């Protein structure tokens, strides 16, 4: 089946997950136990089962999967509505990030039914039964669905995502032609939800040194900016076996981007730049 845009949901599922053991390469503290099952609300007719990853740092216990029976007639159409419904009516201890509820802030990124997406722009109707909700893959978890993004923001800072110029401060704005401005389309829209980096197998195995698609897209955004004068230094910083070239063009990033940005294309363009400047 041909997927045309990242928000397409596959109609058929051959495998919901890779055939690896559940605890494949998982350290003892990260093993997931069976949690509690919450009863369905009385009188509900349209019930959908949600299996949600839970972790309570205060308990000293391992993470667990809690099962919730959600009354779809009593809550909104999106996964975020389900989470808010659970928190309001069933289990107030469920913890997750959310803010804008319309896909512009990137707070509610999580792993829904095996792929990363924003909970606020994912329809419940598109989910399997039972639906599974995990935090973003391959992150240290602070609590429940809240991942620790410190490392990713540190990697973001490494590419110096701001305008660097050597020429004297201009008297007025730094102008761009419409063509120069168009170079930033498809790059500036990134909301840093880190769905892509969290879905990148290369970042799973080498995340300590590989920058990952979200950060590399930001690096591209400044490399192609006509006002930026540090292109050479930026490329020097990127030209490294791990930081940039650990991208093996798997392209899970392009498949999962909730904003529909083409991260694979952006990284491929950057990979060519250090070679092109030599010729």
């Amino acid at each position, binding site marked *: 089946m041909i997927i045309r845009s990242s928000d397409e949901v596959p109609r058929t599922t051959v495998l919901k997950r890779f055939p690896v053991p559940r605890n494949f390469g998982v350290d003892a503290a990260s093993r997931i136990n069976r949690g509690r099952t919450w009863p369905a609300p009385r009188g509900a007719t349209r019930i959908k089962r949600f299996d949600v990853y839970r972790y309570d740092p205060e308990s000293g216990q391992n993470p667990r999967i809690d099962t919730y029976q959600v009354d779809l007639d009593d809550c909104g159409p999106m996964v975020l509505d389900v989470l808010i419904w659970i928190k309001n009516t069933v289990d107030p201890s469920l913890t997750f990030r959310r803010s804008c509820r319309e896909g512009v802030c990137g707070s509610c990124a999580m792993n829904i039914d095996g792929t990363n997406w924003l909970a606020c722009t994912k329809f419940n109707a598109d989910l399997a039964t039972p639906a599974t909700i995990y935090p973003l893959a391959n992150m240290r978890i602070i609590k429940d669905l809240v991942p620790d993004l410190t490392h990713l923001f540190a990697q973001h800072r490494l590419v110096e995502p701001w305008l660097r110029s050597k020429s004297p401060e201009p008297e007025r704005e730094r102008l761009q032609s419409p063509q120069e401005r168009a170079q930033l389309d498809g790059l500036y829209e990134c909301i840093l939800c880190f769905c892509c980096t969290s879905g990148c*197998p290369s970042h799973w195995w080498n995340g300590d040194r590989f920058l990952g698609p979200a950060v590399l897209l930001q690096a591209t955004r400044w490399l192609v900016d006509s006002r930026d004068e540090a292109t050479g230094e930026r490329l020097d910083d990127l030209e490294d076996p791990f930081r940039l070239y650990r991208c093996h063009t798997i392209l899970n990033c392009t498949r999962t981007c909730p904003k529909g940005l083409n991260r694979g294309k952006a990284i491929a363009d950057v990979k060519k730049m250090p070679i092109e400047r030599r010729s």
Partner: protein
Amino acid sequence: MTRAPSDRQRPLSPNIQIYRPQLTSVLSIGNRITGIALSAYAVALVIWLVAAAAGPDAYAAVDAFIGSWVGRIVLFGGTFCLFFHFCGGIRHLVWDAGYGFSLRAIYASGWAVVAASIALTALTYVVGAILAGYGP
């Protein structure tokens, strides 16, 4: 009364254990597995050549294995690995040149690799069978 968070390390959320297999990741891992398999087949090819150089007895032993049904299955797998890795390699070359990155192109080229490697494997055996005199 809330307790202070324990000082145990934060758990790592699952990655490969839960992430949905997609054509993108499956073909990537497939390309790697077939690449590793081809390295083993290269060793097997050397064994075959060394046996041929060593003399008729050694060659007959290796030839007997290749002719057995286990040997034939191994050889068939090798043919598929070769074409799968070859087609996947072409796809990666095109990407490295900066083309074919739209999601539609990613999926179209991905399925093309699957179809082409199956078709080329089948074609190899059909042509081989005809040349060996099994054909009409």
